[in-house]
């Protein structure tokens, strides 16, 4: 019984974060839920949104583009396709990226390329929404 939550954020390619934290708020598909140490076991899908990690009074926001959360007595594991630390996101650059992606969608000649550009746009919009929610 510890009063810290063991938290791991894992993407298909590598482990992005691993460590003990106080509290994590997860954007589940059925609504946000907080995970404290000794939470009951849950498996939940995640919608694209910000993961809020609280540790030692500091809050870190990490954008996850979907995935799922697995809570066990051993701790919380988030399996995410794609994760970005919102502290690293530059709002101006994001705007520019969204504009570029919009243009790509418009200019794409093949369906495959358009679908890729659209997916990129949806992702960037979701990051923007998560970024605005902070303020």
């Amino acid at each position, binding site marked *: 019984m510890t009063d810290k939550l063991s938290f791991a954020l894992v993407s*298909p*390619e590598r482990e992005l974060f691993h460590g003990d934290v106080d509290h994590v708020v997860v954007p589940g598909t059925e609504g946000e839920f907080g995970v404290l140490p000794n939470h009951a076991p849950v498996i939940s899908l995640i919608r694209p949104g910000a993961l809020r990690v609280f540790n030692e009074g500091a809050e870190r926001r990490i954008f996850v583009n979907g995935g799922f959360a697995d809570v*066990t*007595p051993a701790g919380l594991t988030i399996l995410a396709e794609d994760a970005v630390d919102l502290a690293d996101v530059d709002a101006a650059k994001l705007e520019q990226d969204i504009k570029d992606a919009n243009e790509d969608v418009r200019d794409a000649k093949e369906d495959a390329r358009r679908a890729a550009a659209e997916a990129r746009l949806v992702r960037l919009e979701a990051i923007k929404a998560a970024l605005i929610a902070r303020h």
Partner: protein
Amino acid sequence: MASLKDLRVRIASVKSTQKITKAMQMVAAAKLKRSQEAAEAARPYAERIGGVIANLAAAVQGEGAPLLLRGTGKEDVHLLVVATSERGLCGGFNTQIVRLARERIAALQAAGKTVKILTIGKKGRDQLRRQFASMMIEHVDLSAHRVMTAAPAQGVGARIRALYEAGEFDVATFLYSKFKSVIAQVPEAQQLIPATAPAGAARPDLGGAVYEYEPDETDILDALLPRYIDSQILRGLLENVAGFYAAQMTAMDNATRNAGDLIKKLTLQYNRQRQANITKELIEIISGAEAL
């Protein structure tokens, strides 16, 4: 007998070949290290998702289970996903995988099944095309991806699932080369669809509590199974890349050593020839002087 000049040219040519194989060996060694690290880094995700699937698969059984898990109820049409490398100069690496594929095809055909082949990587396609051109339905080209990431694996996974949903096959098996060690890569077959929970996956100890599912089990399984299949493909592809570089490193090491032996042999021959020429000239001079 080759002239001195011929020998000199040959030695120079073997030497430059040796330089190339030596460089390739060093490049392969460096890339092997990186791809091994990539394969290692991808392991936590695969393990966790495998554990969750094992858990869920036990909870969701029978009619309610997603198609990817319970299968079509038949096993008449088999899809073999054969992953090989894009490039050669790697010894028997690709041949091993192709041999396993051939054996599988022969066994399945003997059992009266229909076989379809999807190839990943140019080398496997070229080797299989000679014999099984009519069965090959698709090819995935990964040469554009210099480093293996999740994106191409997801592309392959999406392709396979689309074929499955279109009723193109009943069972999908993934053939790749398992990276056992730098000197041993063992070709392996793994069933992708219907998805099987990994044997020996660590189920988390819940301490008597029961999992809650949000939304319900079936929805989660629906969302997770494609990711699980993608992660299996990614793992296979990463092992393939690591195995490829290991095989290339070994092959190039052998080639370098071989070139060294050849150079030694040719140099010896060259020196003998040179001395023979000197001796011959001396004899000519001496016998000429004696005749006077």
